């Protein structure tokens, strides 16, 4: 392989992915204030710290641990973040029995064996929302 091609390939593989975000003015102020408090000079450093924190929180919830803030007087507050709750093991649901009649089962089977219905517009909008 010619040397120029190799160098170009190496440069390409070393290129770091870019991250761009649209922030509302209030969010922008929060980010700036947090950077100042945490003495972080760049957005990249801020992002790296935020990812590390989020990664830790996800790992803890995945293990079934709760994330708790404790005041100096011992009052505790549990962090409940809906997105984090999705990775919690207790999200796996309990089991119940349902009564079916033959006609319902026949209809269910017909639907389950067929190609799935296309999502409705309302469903797509709801899932995006």
């Amino acid at each position, binding site marked *: 392989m010619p040397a120029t091609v190799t160098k170009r390939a190496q440069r390409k593989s070393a290129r770091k992915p870019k991250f761009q975000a649209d922030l509302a003015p209030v969010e922008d102020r929060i980010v700036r204030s947090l950077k100042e408090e945490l003495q972080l000079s760049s957005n990249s450093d801020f992002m790296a710290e935020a990812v590390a924190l989020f990664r830790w929180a996800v790992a803890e919830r995945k293990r079934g641990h709760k994330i708790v803030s404790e005041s100096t007087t011992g009052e505790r507050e549990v962090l*409940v973040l*809906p997105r984090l*709750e*999705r990775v919690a093991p*207790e*999200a*796996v*649901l*309990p*089991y*119940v*029995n*349902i009564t*079916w*009649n*033959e*006609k*319902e*089962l*026949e*209809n*269910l*089977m*017909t*639907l*389950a*064996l067929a190609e*799935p*219905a*296309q*999502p*409705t517009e*309302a*469903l*797509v909008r*709801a*899932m995006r*929302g």
Partner: protein
Amino acid sequence: MGVIVRRLEEDDVVENFDCKDEALNNYLKKHAWSNQQKISIGVTYVVVDELACKTVLGYFTLATSAIPRDSFPKKHVRGLPAYHLPLILLARLAVDHRFEGKGLGRLLLREAFRISVSVSEQVGCRCIITDAYRHKVAWYAKYGFIPLEGGGEDKPTQRMFLDIRTLKAALKA
């Protein structure tokens, strides 16, 4: 109004919840917590205002179930894998009547769908089933639920089906 959806907690304020349906009110007030924590037959998720995060404005309850392979009509069993058909039951969904028209029902349904997709990836499930009040059938149908005929017109509810694959397609759309 900023709202969040999360699991029901023991100290949530449910006493004033009123969706104008006694059975759904009673379930939340008397059974939801014990069904979730003590006998584990359903997990209830609630929507609360960010600023009054203990007052329940709406809820839904989920559980898993399965249909034994041998209970299907004979003509369908042939060619099926030798397993039960796993599914998720959307057992209840209600919004306090004072907060109707704010999109909370849709928000709850979306969260139920997201949990269902997540569960289907963790433990496997084929569809979501709900028994909808007949006057709510059109609302569920709007989001893709299909009525399963044969339940009897005299029953107050209509059993409805939504394929998990349809939900996954909606997520990708």
